[in-house]
């Protein structure tokens, strides 16, 4: 039996075909793949019995659009790979929290989201009921010294933002280290997806990261369709692609406005705040909800759009993008803006690859990583969106990549609205076959969303592992702050704009 089961985005395999390797072999392969430029798309506990946990890894080979699947059985503890391959650090911590598998020698072994174990295992952090609250019982990294001071922010922040705790170690204005403690948003989403499809599964997927309802719902629906061996009709694929790009447009335009607000450049801030609504409202024209909730269903989409309405929507969007472009150009041309954004919060390309960042945050470091291009799904198998990159890795680059992506998304949406194929918009999802596994990847506006769905003997979802792009990227933000002024934190934070709920699940 081969060491790796080769698969691709949206393919279902027999769960039993995933090779179960010795721990040594498993870790050797993961380490080799990561060192050779591969990525961990997912690494998670699939099941646990009597202290033995079945760990599955999905390794992404971006240039060849392949996914390698492998697994191993771990008894309680395993040697950590995080020091050698930092991209795996959060996955090892998650596995420790969910299945009690202790990664020995992990350089940063802290709870990832204060989640209760999924199986009857001793807690890897030695916690017992009543469970401690966060961040009270969190071993923060501390810098000692006479002139060092510590700044604690959160969980309740100044704006209307989700909760998280930020702990800065500062020397004067300079940040020596930022530590981010999350978990406040943990709602037990993964457990609620088990037993699906049906019931509340889709609603949970839509609200795992509520600003990415389309992205998460698409990954969830695609996973179910792959398991069932069903393909959504072409017209549905088009509408899904249009909705995904509208979501990207709305969020990127909103972010550009917020970045302008954070550097005190009001013209772009207020214009983008309003223009963002053009894209949200376009989604609402299609499905009635500004965030696209209710649009996607397993098997297709719930709503169709009449030909003349599609044309009118395309015209409206083209106009909205033109106005947006004007406002955003002001931002990039303003010297006072560039003074704040250029060279602020730099993440080098090497660090980006080491941490395994995804989405615009990675593309801003010159890493051309985009699921739409690398592991195309749905409409993107036929219609290509050029990958947008920048190379300075700073706040400017993260803003610029968003701007370029918006331009391409706008063109994509307008084009496809004008050229919708005829045909049905929905197919009936048949019952899922038992013991199948699929990896479903979608490029949401923040980056790579991964759902690994596995059916049990009864054809229901036995496990649905969700990885939001924020799971990879929070460490990127923490590193970007090193050596920065603490007053630039809001700007850096917004330039990443990560999801707390998506991370905490």
């Amino acid at each position, binding site marked *: 039996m081969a060491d790796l089961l080769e698969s691709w985005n949206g393919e279902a395999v027999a769960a039993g075909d995933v090779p179960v390797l010795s721990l040594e072999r498993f870790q050797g392969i993961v380490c080799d793949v990561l060192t050779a430029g591969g990525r961990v798309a997912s690494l998670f506990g699939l099941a646990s019995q009597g202290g033995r946990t079945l760990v599955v890894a999905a390794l992404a080979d971006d240039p060849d659009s392949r996914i390698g699947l492998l697994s191993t059985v771990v008894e309680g503890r395993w040697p950590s790979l995080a020091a050698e391959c930092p991209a795996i650090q959060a996955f090892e911590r998650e596995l420790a929290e969910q299945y009690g598998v202790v990664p020995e020698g992990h350089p940063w072994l802290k709870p990832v989201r204060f*989640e209760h174990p999924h199986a009857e295992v001793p807690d890897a952090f030695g916690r017992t009921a009543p469970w401690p*609250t*966060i961040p009270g019982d969190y071993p923060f990294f501390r810098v000692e010294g006479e002139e060092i001071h510590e700044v604690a922010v959160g*969980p*309740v922040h100044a*704006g*209307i933002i*989700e*909760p998280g705790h930020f702990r800065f170690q500062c020397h004067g204005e300079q940040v020596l280290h930022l530590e981010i403690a999350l*978990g*406040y*948003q943990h*709602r*037990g*989403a993964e457990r*609620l997806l088990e037993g699906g499809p049906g019931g*509340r599964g889709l*609603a*949970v997927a839509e*609200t*795992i*990261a*509520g*600003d990415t309802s389309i992205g998460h719902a698409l990954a969830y629906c695609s996973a179910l369709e792959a398991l069932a061996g069903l393909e959504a*009709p072409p017209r549905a694929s088009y509408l899904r692609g249009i909705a995904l790009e509208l979501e990207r447009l709305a969020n990127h335009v909103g972010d550009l406005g917020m970045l302008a607000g954070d550097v005190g450049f009001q*013209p772009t801030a*207020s*214009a983008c*705040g*309003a*223009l963002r*609504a053009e894209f949200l409202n*376009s989604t*609402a*024209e299609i499905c*009635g*909800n*500004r*965030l696209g*909730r*209710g649009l996607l269903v397993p098997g*297709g989409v*719930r*709503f*169709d*759009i*009449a030909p003349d*309405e599609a044309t*009118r*929507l395309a015209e409206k969007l083209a106009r909205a993008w033109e*106005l947006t472009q*004007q*406002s955003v150009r*002001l931002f990039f041309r303003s010297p006072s803006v560039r003074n704040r954004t250029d060279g602020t919060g730099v993440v080098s390309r090497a660090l980006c690859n080491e941490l395994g960042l995804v989405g615009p945050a990675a593309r801003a470091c010159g890493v051309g990583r985009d699921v739409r291009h690398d592991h195309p799904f749905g409409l993107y198998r036929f219609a290509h969106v050029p990958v947008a990159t920048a190379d300075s890795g700073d706040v400017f680059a993260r803003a610029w990549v968003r701007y370029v992506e918006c331009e391409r998304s706008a063109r994509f949406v307008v084009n496809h609205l004008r050229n919708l194929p005829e*045909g*049905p918009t*929905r197919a*009936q999802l048949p019952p899922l076959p038992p013991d199948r596994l699929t990896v479903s990847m979608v490029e949401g506006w923040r980056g790579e969303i991964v759902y690994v769905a596995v059916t049990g003997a009864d054809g229901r979802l036995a496990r649905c592992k969700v990885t939001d792009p924020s799971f990879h990227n929070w460490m990127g933000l923490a590193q970007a702050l090193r050596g920065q002024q603490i007053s630039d934190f809001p700007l850096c934070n917004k330039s990443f704009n990560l999801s707390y*709920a998506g991370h*905490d699940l």
Partner: protein
Amino acid sequence: MIEILKARLKLGKQTVAYPGGPARFPERFRGRPVLDPARCEAGCVACADACPTGAVREAGLASMTLDMGRCLFCAECIDACPSGAVSFTRDYRLAMRTREELLVNALEGDEAKLARALDAKMRSLFGRSLKLRQVSAGGCNGCEAELNASGNIQFDLSRFGIQFVASPRHADGIVVTGPVTENMLLALQKTYEATPAPKIVVAVGACAISGGPFAGSPVVNDGVDGTLPGVPVDLWIPGCPPHPITILDGLLRLLGRVQGDELRLAGTGIVSAAEPLPVLPPGESNPAKIT
């Protein structure tokens, strides 16, 4: 500078006409639900079975009820219903003063219930200046995004003296989103305690009202009710997430700044005819009959 002014002029006025003029909503917007159990086929409970959050109760009976506090306005029930007994109007005025008023049933007729204003003393305190502290307690960033939007130049809450402030010490009340996770409970309680009295509590979104899609999860509290011992919720704003105008309307009614039951609605100009929501049966397409 010239470029900035030119761009500004081209953008024109962005603030919505509401409440002075009509509120603009897409034709497919799902607002206040209307039930017509007379249409139900005997024994049919398809809507209740399809509902992801158990918002439909006593389906098929004359006493059939839809709980807007649980409803995600997702259209699963309309899809499932073979006889059109469940429909959603475009009435965006969904906020209520009590949890019970969020229950919609056919026995009470089609009239919309509307949120009542605070008493005279509270109105005199907050009527022209209401500062709120938002607490996301497991919110997915959907309600948070719409609360943020309600403050932008389009919906412009600050026209009415309503603002979200950075500290509970500066606030007259808190706005809670999310199902109140176990991990956020203490922070929510502390934020409430830090807010000086008299203060109000507003629950925004299905999660904060009932737990929404996360109701029953062992690590959440199924909404804000009961998490602040002895503290009643003053305003419930349902939706997943509620539209910014629904939020605005709820707050303005609470302050007595909008009264009466006149409903002024306009389309958004993209989709023309105001016909019922199109629902296509699985595997069938009918692009001609969409609007």
